[in-house]
Every structure is written in C-alpha cells, then in structure tokens.
C-alpha cells in the first residue's frame, strides 16, 4: 500500500472539504482572485454553483437557503469589491444569527497590505459583524480552517463566518488531511441548562397565574418547535412570538397571540404588560419588542433561556437566566412541571383583549389594501407556504396577517432590517424547498434594491411568486413622517420614479400582472400559486397612505400603543 497521501492543490482541497461538509449549493460570482477555484469548479459535479448578479444577492440567497433548511449557506466571491459587496448580507446574517460561510478571494499573501489591485482587508472589515473570520495564510491550514468555519457557523448561536483565501494559497499544493473532529478550546457552546435553574423555572410556571411564553427565532434555529408545542399545549400557556419567532408555534392555534412589540397585536402586548411570569425562549429582548425597557413586563418574574450568555441581562435584567440550547431546556422544563397552572381567568382576560381591539383594516373606499392580499394568501396557502419578505410595511402586515403554521417558513430580515433582502433570499429558498410554494412579498422600494437578481430567478426557472405591495412610497418611512415628523414626506414618494414593474419583469421573460381591483386579487393569486414554470410577478397597486397599526412609538412603553389612525372628527 502506498501510505503517502495524494498531493492536492488548494482548489481541490477546497471543494473536497465542501463535499465532506455536505454542501449542495454555492452562491457565487467569479473574479480574478478566485479564478483557480472557478477553473476547478468547471469539473466539479457534486456541488451546484448558482451564478448571482451581485454579491449582496449571493449572501441573502445563502441566508434564505440556511433559514429554510437549517443547513449552512455558502457564498464564494472574489477579492476587493466582490468581498465588500457581501458586507450587508454578512451583517444581516450576524444580526439574525444565520449560519453562512462566505469564502472571499484575496490577493496573494506577499501582496497583502500593498494596496494591490482588488485588495480589501475583508477580515478587518467584517470582524465586528461575523461570529468569527479567518485569513488562511498557508495551505497547511486550509482544510482545518474550512472545517472550523462550518463548525463555528452552525453550532451554538449560529452566525456568519468569513474565510479569506489568498490566491497563492489556493494555487499551492499539499497533502490533504481533513480533521474528523475539531476541538476549539475557546469555543464550547453549552447545550444543557442548569438543572436547578430549570427546576426553579418549572416551579414558577406552576405557581403563576398569568404566564406568557415569549418566543424568538432561537426556538426555530434549535429545531425546538415540537418541544415548544408540548410545553405550551400541556400547560395551556399563551404564546407570543417575535418577528423571527413566527412559525415556531402554529399561528392558527388559539393559544397563539401573534407577534408582540412595536407592531404586535394589542392582546399580545397587553399580555406582556399584565403577565406575572414571562418566559423568554430564544429571544433577545430587542428594542423593537420591548419598547421602553423599564416598563417591559414590569410586574413579571422574568425567565430567560438563551444559548448565548451575552444576551442575558443585556437589555432587560432578568430574574432567572438559563444558559443552554432552548430545545433541550424546553423539553426538560416540560418534564419538570407536575401540576398544570389554572389559567382560566387569564385566558378570559386575553380573549377580552382580542375582542376589544382586533386587527382590522378598512377597504370601504374600494381601494386595494395590502392586508387583504396577505390575508387571502394566508387562506389560500393555509399558512403552509414559505413566505419571504423584504423590510417595511408589507413585512409587518405579513407578520400580522399571515398565519404561519410551520417553522422555517417565515424568512425575513429582522435585526438589520435590510431592504433588498426579499428577492435574493427567496431565490435561496427556492433551491432548498421544493414541496411548498415560495412567496416573495416585497415592497416597491425594497424590490428595487436587488432587482438585478430577477436574472438569477429567471435563468434557473425558479417558481417564486413575487408579490410587490406597491404603494408608490417608502411606506414605513412615510408612516413615520406622517406620525412623528410633521407630515414632511421628504424623499419617500416614488410615484414619479418607479418603473413599470410588469414591463420590467417582461424584459427578464418573467410572467407578470398588475392588479389594482379588489376583485382581481383572488383569481390572480390562484393563478400565481398554480404557476410553476418559473417566476411570476404581480404588481399590486395599493392605497398610498395606509399605515401599520397598532404601533408603539420608538422608545415608548408598549402600553402606549397607537391602535389606529385618528379620524379628524375624533381629534376635535
């Protein structure tokens, strides 16, 4: 036997590592520093490379893929501008804890620091927005670095990892050795929560009269939706979710209170204000959820379960922290509860709040409303589509009106609030999800931020349903201008500058419709849902001045919600 290992180039090692990590897709864009990788890619058949039209698009696609599957999304771009174009997507993945690995080309090591052509210090640039990053300085480190990158991105609190690959490292040759296991002495995420803390939490639930589960994206990431369902159902606990948490618990279940926070439901926010016990599960007390932190769940005993210790006591001081994987902690917590709390009165109160201020919108003037379209979509798909949104009013209406029934079906940019996220993320989802309709609900503003990716969607014939909620305004900004900035609609009116979206789609050979009548909505939606030969785009022309209600003004207590637009008569 020849014991000497085969010599491999950096490029060969790169793809062999990706194969061993089970990578199916790479979202990428070629360029000078990664030419060797693309040369090799030409002959690689076990990984599909998806050619994007802008590197930011690639990162959002990887995010969409990762959020829909739980697997690591992979991006490959060149050095300099290729790398810097990924920055927004990386920051987005960091804020929403999405596992992606971004491979960036780099100039040869001997030129680093020389202001070489297409050089950018991407490790320096991305240091504050990555979970970790690596500059591979020698080919001997390549395989173990890739292994570490995937491990770090996907474990603990997931996040983006950047691996910077100098051109000469990729071109050089070495023996291939892929570590089976890796041991990082500075990184050991804690899986199991502290037993005594869990026992104490169980006791608090049993004693409580007005408990509330406050569920974040961590539950979905940990795959803990079943554990959540059991914990909530067996103990009859009300469940409210953050934007990223939607889908963790069925939205059509009577125990779901919907979303809480700035645009949360009245009853969810009232439940927060009045509960005596709040259990945060994989959520991070974001300012869009808490409003003024001093008054958030003021009288409640607060339990916080999170895998990331830095989240605990960061925004809101809690009474009982449990560091661990929320999936395991919920299972143990459910097992510890022996006596179910009696919550009859609490539920009566919650039902009363639901009656008092339901979510509502008014179409009596005959003009189309986004809420109606989203409600219809929720009905037609029975909450079983993957809904990818952009950022803004339409995103909040989706959160309010689309009843997500399954985890990993709500794909949205929460923490960073990245306009332009929707279309590329939906493309990423379309490569991962084949058995559900994929809806890209976007706004006329956000859509235009990454609309170059229509090429990608059309070229790969992805059955994405692109629904533009077109109010000819940067609607959310307009809403704030109306409510808080003296109605100065400064640079938010797009009506004179928006393109004809139908013609635009047609230029990409994408089927498209424009809808402005209420009666046309349902038939067009049905047609779009049945069309699977490629992308389809519908431009819904909705009322310009509509606003998302309820709204908690920034920095206010969530008890100070504005429920609806005041009628001029009411104001007198």
């Amino acid at each position, binding site marked *: 036997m020849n014991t000497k290992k085969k010599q491999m180039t950096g490029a060969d090692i790169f793809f062999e590592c990706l194969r061993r990590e089970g990578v199916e897709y790479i979202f990428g864009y070629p360029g000078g520093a990664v030419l060797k990788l693309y040369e090799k890619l030409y002959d690689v058949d076990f990984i599909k490379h998806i050619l994007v039209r802008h590197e930011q698009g690639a990162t959002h696609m990887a995010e969409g893929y990762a959020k829909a599957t739980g697997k690591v999304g992979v991006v490959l771009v060149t050095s300099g501008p290729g790398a810097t174009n990924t920055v927004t997507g990386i920051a987005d993945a960091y804020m929403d804890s999405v596992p992606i690995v971004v491979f960036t080309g780099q100039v040869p090591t001997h030129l680093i620091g020389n202001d070489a052509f297409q050089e950018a210090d991407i490790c320096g640039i991305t*240091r504050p927005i990555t*979970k970790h990053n690596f500059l591979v300085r020698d080919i001997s480190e390549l395989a173990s670095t890739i292994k570490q990158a995937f491990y770090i991105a996907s474990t603990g609190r997931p996040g983006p990892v950047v691996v910077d690959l100098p051109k000469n490292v990729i071109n050089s040759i070495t023996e291939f050795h892929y570590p089976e296991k890796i041991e990082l002495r500075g990184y050991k995420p804690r899986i199991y929560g502290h037993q005594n803390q869990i026992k104490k939490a169980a006791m608090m639930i049993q004693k409580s009269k007005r408990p509330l589960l406050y569920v974040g994206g961590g539950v979905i990431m940990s795959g803990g939706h079943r554990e959540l369902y059991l914990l909530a159902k067996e103990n009859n606990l009300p469940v409210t979710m953050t934007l990223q948490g939607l889908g963790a618990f069925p939205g059509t279940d009577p125990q779901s209170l919907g979303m809480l926070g700035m645009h949360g439901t009245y009853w969810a926010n009232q439940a927060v204000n009045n509960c005596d016990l709040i259990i945060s599960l994989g959520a991070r007390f974001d300012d869009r959820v808490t409003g003024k932190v001093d008054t958030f769940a003021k009288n409640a005993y607060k339990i916080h379960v999170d895998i990331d210790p*830095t989240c605990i006591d960061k925004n809101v001081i809690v009474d009982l922290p449990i560091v661990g994987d929320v999936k395991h902690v919920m299972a143990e917590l459910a097992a510890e509860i022996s006596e179910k709390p009696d919550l009859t009165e609490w539920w009566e109160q919650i039902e009363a709040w639901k009656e008092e201020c339901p979510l509502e919108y008014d179409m009596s003037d005959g003009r189309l409303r986004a809420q109606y379209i989203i409600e219809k979509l929720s009905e037609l798909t029975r909450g079983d589509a993957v809904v990818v949104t952009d950022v803004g009013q339409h995103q909040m209406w989706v959160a309010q009106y689309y009843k997500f029934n399954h985890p990993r079906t709500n794909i949205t940019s929460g923490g960073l609030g990245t306009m332009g996220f929707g279309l590329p993320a939906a493309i990423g989802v379309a490569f991962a999800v084949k058995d559900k309709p994929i809806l890209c609900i976007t706004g006329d503003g956000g859509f235009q931020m990454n609309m170059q990716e229509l090429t990608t969607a059309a070229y790969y014939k992805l059955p994405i349903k692109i629904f533009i909620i077109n109010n000819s305004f940067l609607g959310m900004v307009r809403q704030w201008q109306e409510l808080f900035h003296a109605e100065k609609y400064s640079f938010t009116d797009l009506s004179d500058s928006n393109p004809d979206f139908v013609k635009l789609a047609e230029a990409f050979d994408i089927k498209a419709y424009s809808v402005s009548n209420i009666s046309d909505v349902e038939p067009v939606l049905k047609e779009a849902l049945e069309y699977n030969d490629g992308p389809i785009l519908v431009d819904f022309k909705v009322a310009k001045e509509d606003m998302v209600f309820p709204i908690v003004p920034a920095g206010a207590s969530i008890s100070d919600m504005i429920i609806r637009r005041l009628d001029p008569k009411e104001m007198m």
Partner: protein
Amino acid sequence: MLHVISALVENKFGAFNRVVTMFSAKGYNIHSISIGETEDPTISRMTIVTEGEDKVIEQIVKQLNRLIDTIKIVDLTYQPKVQRELLLISVGYQKGTRSEIIDICEIFRGNIVDINNRTLMLEITGPPEKIDAAINVLEPYGIKEIARSGLVALRRGEQSRKNSEAEIETNKVGELK
C-alpha cells in the same frame, strides 16, 4: 470604577485585534491593555484595565468569553492579586538635583538605566498608585518623557492545574447568577 480583567487568548494572528474591536464596537473604554506570551507559547495573556458599572463589566466579561479566540476570562478586581506596571521616565537634572533624583529613585526601589549630561532615565515598577506617586514626586525636576507599560496582573496563590482546568469550563460557559 476600574476593573482588571485577565484574558487568556490564542496567540495567533488577529486575536488581539478581535478583543480591541469588541471594545470599540460596543463602546466600552479601555484604560490600559498589555499582552504577552505565557508559559504556553500558543497562549497570550492580556491584562485589560477597563471602567464601567457592574452591569457593563458583566457584559464585557461575557462578550470577551463569546469570542472564539479567548480561552479564559477572569475579572481580577476583587481577587487577591499581584499587579505591576513598569515606568520608564526621563527627568532633567541640574547641578545639585542629580543626587536628589537618585535618592527618589532608591526610595521607589527603581533603577537608573540611562544618563547623559542633561537627563536621567529611571525604571520603576509597582502597582499603578506607586507609579503615579513616583511621577508626582519627579514632576518638579522636569519630566522629559514617560513610557508606561500598562498593568499586568496575576492572581495570588497557585491554583492546582486540575482546578484551573475546571475553571476554564465554568468561566467559558458562564453560570451567571
């Protein structure tokens, strides 16, 4: 108040930068920072002096722990410890003041490490208060230049190896309350 945080970090490219980036990204103050190799050449020890309320310090320790390249973080502020700083100070002298300065140097148990016909350079080590006092006393003679090393600190009383490993575990994952 000032806190002394001792951090064991991977002795590799970018680790120091990551720690400093965390401080600047989160808006925390660094009063002084020093770094050097330890008994294990793959590990460096950073001694960071920082300022903040208890809640801020707790976050700093957690954020430092969260970095992949940090191995162990200890807030030494309330622990028995030895802390030292090195001062190199160049002081001007005239006829008559030279011996006074040398006296002061002896009182502070320092060394004269350089001399020319205008200045003396003193090397003084000690806790920060002692360094401050030395600077204060030397002030009237005309200080030309100062270099301070920043604080280094070690906890008193050797832990047995076994214990300190167990500590790495608990410190890293952090039971918080």
